[in-house]
C-alpha cells in the first residue's frame, strides 16, 4: 500500500493559539497585495453620525476595506468547518508525548522529529469576504452630511464674506488637511472621496468644508457665463482661472466678491474636461469646458435648483427657455431634454418636469433591472433556484 512508503508528518496543536483573521481576496486585490511594493489598505467604518447617511438601515454598521481607489464591503462568513492555520513545528513537544503517537504510527513511516512536524497555531471559524454592492460606493451621501450647506441669497448678509480675505491666504496644505479630516470619517477610498468632492463642487472656506446648494451652483455658473462674455473668454478653449475670477468681480473690486473664489474654483474643477483636471491637492490654474458635458450640467443644476421634487415641478417650456438663456450663445442648441442624463428628470404630466436625485435614480434603475431579471428567468429548475439562493 502506498501509505506504507510515504512519510508521515506529525501533526500537533500549539497552545496558546494565535489570533488570525482570514480575508478572502478578489483577483485584483490578490495582484495588488502580491506585488513587491504593495500599498497599505485601510479598514474604514462611518462615524455614528455619518452611518445614517445611507438610507438602508441594515447597512448602518459595517466595515469597508479600502485601497487607494476601490472600496469593498466586508462580510463575515461563518463556516461549519474550521480552518486550522499550520506552521512547521517549533519542536516544543515533549518526547513522552511524541512516543504516544510514534507507537501508534507503528514501525513504518518513522518520524524524523522534530523537523517533520507541523503544528496548528490558530483556528478560524469564519472568513471575511469582500463584495461591491450594486451601484458601487459613493462618497456623496456622506459628504452631504458632513459638509455645511452653502446657500447665499443675493442681498443676504454673508458671514463668510468677512473671512474671505483670510481664506484667500489659506494655503493648499491647510485646505488639504481639512479635506483629509472630512474624508477620514467617510468609509470609501480616497479616490472615491475625491470624486465625490469634485462632483458636488465642495470647497473649503473660512476653515470649514462647504457644499453649495444647487441654486448657488447655478448662480455661480451664471456669473461665470456672463463674466466670460464680458471679458471675451472662450470657455471651450483653455483659459486662466484667474481671468475668469476677475471677470465675475464687479469692476475688478476684490472686496465685492459675490462668493468665495474657492467656490468658483470648485465649479471650474467640476466642469473642466477630465483630462485637464488636476488632482485636488493641486491648484487649478488652467481649464477649458466641454460644451456638451457642461451644458448638461447646467440644465440639471438649474432643474435641481428650481424643481427638486415632484410637488415643485415646473413647466417644461419655461425650463428649456431658462436653460437656453443661461448658456453661452454658441451653446444654446445644447438645451434639449434628450441631452439630460437618463432618469435625471421625470414628468408628472406632459407639460411639467422635475429633477430626480442621483440616489433616487439608481433606485428606480435597480428596481426595473430587478424586475427585468425576474422576468427573464422564469426558471423552475430547482438546481438553478438553489444556486441563485446560495449566491445571495
Amino acid at each position: 500500500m502506498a501509505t506504507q512508503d510515504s512519510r508521515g508528518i506529525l501533526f500537533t496543536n500549539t497552545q496558546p493559539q494565535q489570533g488570525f483573521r482570514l480575508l478572502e481576496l478578489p483577483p485584483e486585490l490578490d495582484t495588488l497585495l502580491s506585488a513587491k511594493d504593495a500599498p497599505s489598505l485601510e479598514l474604514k467604518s462611518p462615524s455614528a453620525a455619518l452611518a445614517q447617511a445611507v438610507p438602508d438601515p441594515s447597512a448602518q454598521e459595517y466595515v469597508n476595506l479600502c485601497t487607494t481607489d476601490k472600496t469593498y464591503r466586508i462580510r463575515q462568513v461563518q463556516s461549519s468547518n474550521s480552518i486550522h492555520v499550520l506552521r512547521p513545528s517549533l519542536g516544543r513537544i515533549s518526547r513522552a508525548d511524541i512516543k504516544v503517537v510514534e507507537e501508534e504510527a507503528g514501525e513504518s513511516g518513522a518520524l524524523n522529529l522534530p523537523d517533520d512536524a507541523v503544528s496548528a497555531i490558530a483556528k478560524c471559524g469564519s472568513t471575511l469576504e469582500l463584495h461591491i454592492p450594486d451601484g458601487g460606493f459613493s462618497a456623496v451621501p456622506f459628504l452631504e452630511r458632513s459638509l455645511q450647506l452653502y446657500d447665499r441669497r443675493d442681498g443676504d448678509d454673508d458671514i463668510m464674506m468677512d473671512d474671505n480675505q483670510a481664506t484667500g491666504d489659506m494655503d493648499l496644505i491647510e485646505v488639504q488637511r481639512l479635506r483629509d479630516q472630512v474624508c477620514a470619517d467617510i468609509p470609501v477610498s480616497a479616490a472615491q472621496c475625491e470624486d465625490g468632492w469634485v462632483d458636488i463642487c465642495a470647497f473649503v472656506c473660512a476653515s470649514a468644508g462647504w457644499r453649495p446648494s444647487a441654486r448657488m451652483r447655478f448662480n455661480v455658473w451664471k456669473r461665470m457665463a456672463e463674466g466670460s462674455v464680458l471679458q471675451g473668454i472662450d470657455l471651450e478653449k483653455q483659459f486662466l482661472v484667474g481671468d475668469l475670477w476677475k471677470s465675475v468681480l464687479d469692476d475688478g473690486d476684490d472686496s465685492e466678491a459675490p462668493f468665495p473664489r474657492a467656490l468658483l474654483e470648485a465649479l471650474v474643477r467640476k466642469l473642466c474636461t477630465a483630462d485637464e483636471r488636476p488632482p485636488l491637492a493641486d491648484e487649478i490654474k488652467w481649464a477649458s469646458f466641454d460644451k456638451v458635458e457642461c451644458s448638461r450640467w447646467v440644465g440639471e443644476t438649474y432643474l435641481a435648483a428650481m424643481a427638486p421634487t415632484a410637488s415643485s415641478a415646473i413647466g417644461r417650456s419655461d425650463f428649456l427657455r431658462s436653460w437656453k438663456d443661461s448658456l453661452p450663445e454658441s451653446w444654446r442648441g445644447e438645451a434639449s431634454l434628450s441631452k439630460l442624463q437618463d432618469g435625471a428628470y421625470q414628468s408628472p404630466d406632459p407639460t411639467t418636469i422635475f429633477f430626480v436625485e442621483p440616489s433616487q435614480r439608481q433606485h428606480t434603475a435597480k428596481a426595473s433591472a430587478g424586475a427585468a431579471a425576474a422576468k427573464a428567468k422564469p426558471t423552475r429548475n430547482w438546481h438553478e433556484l438553489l444556486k441563485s439562493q446560495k449566491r445571495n
Partner: protein
Amino acid sequence: MPSIRIHPHASPAAINPAASLSPNLSHPLTNPLPQLLQTPSGLAFLELQGTINLPSNESDDGSYNKESYSPKGNTFETPVGKLMFPDYSALNPDDTKWMKRAYLYVGRYQRMTGEVKKLPRPIAVLQRRESSGAPPNAEVEELEVLEIVRYKILFKNRPEPVNDV
C-alpha cells in the same frame, strides 16, 4: 472612528518568531509539507469538519487571549495525529495527482481521508501588528498581512475506522 491600517507585508519577526525564539535552532525551520503547500512564512491551511478535542485544561475555543499569548512566551505543542500525502513524491513536485489524497491519522484506529485543494480565491492571513517602538497607544490598532495562502488540506469526511496503519 479612525481607520485601521493594514500593512501589506508583515515584519520579518512576525513571520518567523522561531528565529528569535529558538537560538539553538541554528537552521531555519524545514517545512515538511509538500512544496505546493509551502509558503514563505510557512503558514498553511488545514480544514476540518469538527474540532480537535484537547485535554480539558487547555481552552479549545481557539480564542485569542491577548494576555496569555506572546510570541516570546511559553508555547507548547500537543501531538494530535499524523498527516500523510500517500501519493506525493518530492522528486516529482510538478505532478499534481497526489493532491487527490491526504490522510490524517488520529490515534491508532481512526483515519480521515481528504485532499489538497486550491482555494477558489486566495486568502490573506491577517494579524494584529505588534507595535514595536511606537508609543503603547491602545487606540492605534494596525493589522498586517502575514501571508497569502492559495491551497488548503481539506478533510470534509468523518473519521473512518482502520485496523492497522
